């Protein structure tokens, strides 16, 4: 396992100060209070894209900077600290990974430059049930028809589903739910006839939608990778998303930790800063220990993606699970240690708590990844 390079450390500092100044949590709160359709601010997204962060995973010949997952994670972590809302993770992360891993040369040429400069927003439409399920459970039908396919079915709780210009859709072209053969991936323009979106208003105030596919006709060129053989590819794409989510979660939790530490040092009760009370001091020590362990897992997963390590799947489940455990615990302690003030909407704790659960459930919660980890270890 390697440490962050100097370049990465510098980027971290750069993202951190940009987020604190240009896209702090107060800006997210304003947006929430104002109410948005998309769940993010267009200006913020443009700025992110302009700084090149949307192109971190994308090869240089397709307009990106090809700096890899560990670097991308650094950005996600620092933006996560401020709850900076943008389609970065979904579009420039998972979306780009889908094209990079499964796309033909033509598809890469068509899509990657737009993903890299932020002009295209992609969303991954995978879940069909409220709880993330293994890919073999996918039921949405894509039936061969002429030289293309007709899609029918529902994808739920799709992040950035409202603002997406195109969807990566996991569909069944053969077989029954429960079989891992017969899955295929498609990249489909959002304005294709037959696609309808229903906006969801969620506790974390981000942009999600249910997407209904009703007789959606797509050409054969929309197929991403091999027909019927998408399961392993989809797992790889999902693993990218999981490691990216874990990086964002680490940032959310790290900020929650810092807020709590600050409060422990500054809140006076019984004539003492409350952090001087040993029971709270020990809880802070335990949280800190958890945070350090989580960071190691997150960085290891991102590094494994960069290196194509054979343990990548295991490390991605490890990082998602550990980040979930820590963020769950940390977000509850954030409220508990802040006491009454933590319960008020005026204070930011609630925003972190709500975001925490949304991230925790995305692409598999702790239980899901504990199960997957055990299966990968052969028991």
């Amino acid at each position, binding site marked *: 396992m390697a440490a962050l390079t100097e370049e990465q450390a510098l980027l971290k500092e750069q993202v951190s100060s940009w987020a604190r100044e240009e896209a702090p949590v107060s800006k997210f709160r304003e947006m929430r209070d104002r109410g948005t359709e998309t769940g993010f601010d267009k200006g913020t997204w443009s700025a992110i894209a302009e700084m090149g962060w949307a192109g971190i995973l994308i090869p240089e010949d397709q307009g990106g900077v090809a700096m890899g997952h560990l670097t991308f994670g650094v950005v996600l972590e620092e933006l996560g600290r401020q709850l900076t809302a943008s389609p970065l993770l979904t579009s420039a992360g998972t979306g780009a990974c889908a094209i990079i891993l499964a796309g033909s040369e033509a598809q890469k040429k068509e899509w990657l430059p737009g993903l890299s400069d932020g002009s295209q927003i992609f969303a991954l439409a995978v879940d069909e049930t409220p709880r993330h399920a293994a890919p073999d459970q996918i039921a949405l039908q894509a039936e061969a028809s002429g030289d293309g396919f007709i899609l029918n079915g529902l994808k739920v709780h799709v992040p950035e589903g409202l603002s997406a210009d195109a969807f990566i859709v996991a569909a069944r072209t053969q077989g029954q739910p429960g079989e891992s053969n017969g899955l295929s991936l498609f990249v489909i323009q959002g304005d294709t006839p037959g696609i309808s979106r*229903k906006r*969801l208003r969620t*506790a974390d105030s981000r942009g999600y939608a249910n997407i209904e596919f009703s007789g959606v006709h797509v050409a054969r060129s929309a197929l991403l990778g091999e027909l019927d053989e998408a399961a392993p590819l989809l797992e790889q794409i999902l693993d990218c998303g999981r490691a990216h989510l874990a990086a964002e979660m680490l940032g959310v939790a790290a900020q929650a930790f810092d807020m709590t530490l600050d409060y422990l040092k500054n809140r006076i009760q019984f004539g003492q800063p409350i952090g001087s009370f040993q029971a709270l001091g020990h809880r802070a020590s335990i949280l800190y220990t958890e945070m350090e362990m989580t960071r190691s897992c997150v960085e290891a997963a991102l590094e494994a993606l960069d290196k194509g390590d054979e343990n990548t799947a295991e490390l991605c489940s490890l990082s998602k699970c550990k980040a979930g455990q820590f963020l769950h615990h940390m977000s509850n302690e954030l*409220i508990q240690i802040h*006491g009454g003030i933590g319960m008020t909407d005026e204070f930011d704790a609630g925003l972190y708590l709500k975001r925490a659960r949304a991230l925790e*459930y995305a692409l598999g919660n702790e*239980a899901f990844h*504990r199960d997957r980890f055990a299966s990968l270890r052969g028991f």
Partner: protein
Amino acid sequence: MANSSEALGSFREEVKSWLADHFPSSLAGQAGAVLRMESVDRSNPDLDLWIKRLGEKGWGTPTWPAEYGGGGLSQLEAQVLNQEIDAIGAFNPLIVTAGMGITMVGPTILEYGTEEQKKRHIPKICLGTTFWSLGYSEPNAGSDLASLQCRAEDMGDHWRLNGQKTWTSGADVSDWCGVLVRTDMDAPKRDGISFIMIDMNQSEIETRPIRLIAGASPFCETFFNNARAEKDDLLGDLNGGWTVGKRLLQHERQSQTGSSSGMGGGQKRSLRDVAEKYVGLDAQGKLSDRDLRGRLADHMMEARAHSLTIARIVAESRGNAKVSAAASILKNAAARVAQNRAELLLEMLGSHGLGWEGEEYNADELAAVRTWLSGKAMSIYGGSFEIQNNIIAKNILGLPENTQRG
């Protein structure tokens, strides 16, 4: 009062028949719908009727002395009453519509009040015609309540109050408020505090509702700007407010042990049924998410252990209901059980457990999210989890206090 099992049996019959005659059947099972702390629907004529009937019978405050309008029942009789209320999906709305009147203020007035104060305040609480709030916490006096700064000056014929309170539940709709104030600025922290009852209908008191992470709430910030209280509205001794206040907190803790009944049962959907619906059972009839299954079973066992503990402590007190030394244990356990339940429910609902509003989510789903958030307060208010642990360590276990840095 009747405590023999025979007498209790005939009392049970009396209760059954009274309830059959007086409880409006339209309200059965509707406690959750009509009684929300942040907005009791007083436009419902059946609810009004029920409050009036129950109040006049004194059964909204079943164990309070009949001479002041209470029910005059024994603890065992009250238990029978609650059981019968639960059995038909009825509920005691006064617990909510009196604000803090029944759970906290009333018992304290009965204990510390003068005869005149009892006669003045208790009957109206029993009838549910006054809504009480309590002014305790201040922005810089939460767990460390004794450092409060709100003060009352003796103006000869009245008290003049100045300062700020926070977490005053229902202050904006309350008729009366019990306020802990500093009446001696020079005395050591706990020694200069008094408990004063104040009429909220005056422009010198301003209230500002607090929005919580779960949305609207009954809590307020309350500002006293030269507000006026009468001299004979001091409860307990001058500068003896800490004793009265501590007692009130004990009543509060007691009310949060999970043992208060009469609020109607059967409102909660069974976790098992939610699990079956959202997670599904496999061919063996076991929850298909086995990891969740174990945690769910663990939670149910803890919930059962908690309710068995309440029952045991009630039985051990042999009908002699004092503020129990076990209240701190039960309060912490109650908070843990409720918070775990809410987390598990959310987890089972998955992305449906992240809904905030809109028709894509059903009412149960939306309620689950709000309950999850508002429940985080259970280990904070009424003495936090940490404060309860301090109380257990010191008062029950007899552990020494630290006298130097640690």
